[in-house]
């Protein structure tokens, strides 16, 4: 599969949020305004791409040679947690305002199943190192796309009249559901038509 194919697959066809429904916590939690949503999107993209590469290395240099693949989940989580910790320190140093805006959701990237998801999916698809890395970036960009779309819609929703019981998270979930329906339009046939 070409890199373009991987990118289109993970950004549109298998969009982590709108098709696979992974990582909904930050998708709902940090999509209230565009600025922090974009910050979150890039943080997740960074973590996912590095995580995909690092977990590929763990899988092929440690787990497979020692025949201990059953440790996949725990070692991957370990790696992801360390990466997120690193990103957190980096953001705190470089952009205190983004650090404040992301709040609790930053350390929560650790338990973001989308990150573990890309690690496991890349391993199961037998990607090589570069393919894993590209898949990580693409999945992160898919996340960024979804959360960016969501945050722009939610900023508009703020000014609209919404029935009281639906205000806040409920309307966000309904909006997310409609977006997911729209993303159903992207499928394998489309991919085949695009890249043959």
């Amino acid at each position, binding site marked *: 599969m070409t890199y373009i194919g991987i990118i289109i697959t993970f950004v549109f066809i298998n969009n982590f949020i709108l098709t696979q429904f992974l990582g909904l916590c930050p998708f709902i939690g940090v999509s209230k305004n565009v600025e922090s949503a974009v910050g979150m999107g890039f943080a997740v993209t960074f973590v996912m791409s590095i995580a995909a590469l690092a977990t590929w290395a763990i899988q092929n240099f*440690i787990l497979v040679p020692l025949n201990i693949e059953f440790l996949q989940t*725990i*070692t991957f989580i*370990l790696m992801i947690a*360390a990466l997120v910790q690193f990103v957190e*320190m980096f953001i705190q*140093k470089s952009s205190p305002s983004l650090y404040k805006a992301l709040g609790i959701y930053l350390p929560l990237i650790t338990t973001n199943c989308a990150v573990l998801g890309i690690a496991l999916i890349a391993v199961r698809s037998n990607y090589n190192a570069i393919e894993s890395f590209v898949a990580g970036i693409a999945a992160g960009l898919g996340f960024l796309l979804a959360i960016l779309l969501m945050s722009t819609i939610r900023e508009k929703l703020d000014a609209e009249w919404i029935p009281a019981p639906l205000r806040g998270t409920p309307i966000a979930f309904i909006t997310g559901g409609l977006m997911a329906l729209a993303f159903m339009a992207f499928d394998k046939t489309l991919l085949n038509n695009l890249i043959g």
Partner: protein
Amino acid sequence: MIDRVLYAFLSVGILGGLLGLALAFAARIFAVKKDKRIEEVEGVLPSINCGACGYPGCSGYAEAIINEDADMTLCSPGGADVATKIGEIMGVEVSVSGEKLVAQIHCRGTNETSLKKYEYKGIEDCNAMHSAFGGDKICPYGCLGLGSCIKVCPVDAIVKTEYGYLDIDKDKCIACGKCIDVCPTGVIKMIPYRAREIVACNSTDKGGAVRKYCSVGCIGCKMCEKKSPEGGFKVDNFLASIDYNAEGSRAEAVEVCPAKCIIDLDVAD
């Protein structure tokens, strides 16, 4: 079998150890140096993040005091108390001048008292309504009543009364000025905390015009000037105003004002 257990144990252990070391090393590089006084100043500030000082929240102001030599008397909710305490932390004497101010809405027009030029149906927001022909009231100066100020008030000092107009509780008001910034008509003004009477009108239209569209609007008749000459009343541009430096009684003016727009805040309605 036993070597697999050993491998599992070792690989997770070594991986964890290495990552831990790497993180400890990264923590050194990315350590954020913080002046201890920032936390102390932040502890003194009221931490309601109202933004009256002009900095993003109390922590932003605390940082500005330490790093940018910001003025130490900018915290209006904290007032003199907080300024003195900040001065103690910074080791300088802070003199606080000026008296405590509070915001007040200078309009008591309701659906009953003021005529409308159209029926507004739209976003519940004063600025949105104001963009449509200056609001639904014929009077372009008064309170629009949709309560954009209520939404921005950090201490919930503004309430919609049962009569339909908005009122500011002067004991809750911290003079952050957010309501003044958001109000499209400029009907909210600062008055001294000790002020009892206000001219509850913002209209500079001529008396006859005001009379046609509002029953509680100032018509500029100058009765207040005549009846309470010591009260600091001044009618300018068909609108009475009060100079709060004048110490004289204003009770007479409250009594005689034909539109009853000079009100005593302590005598609640």
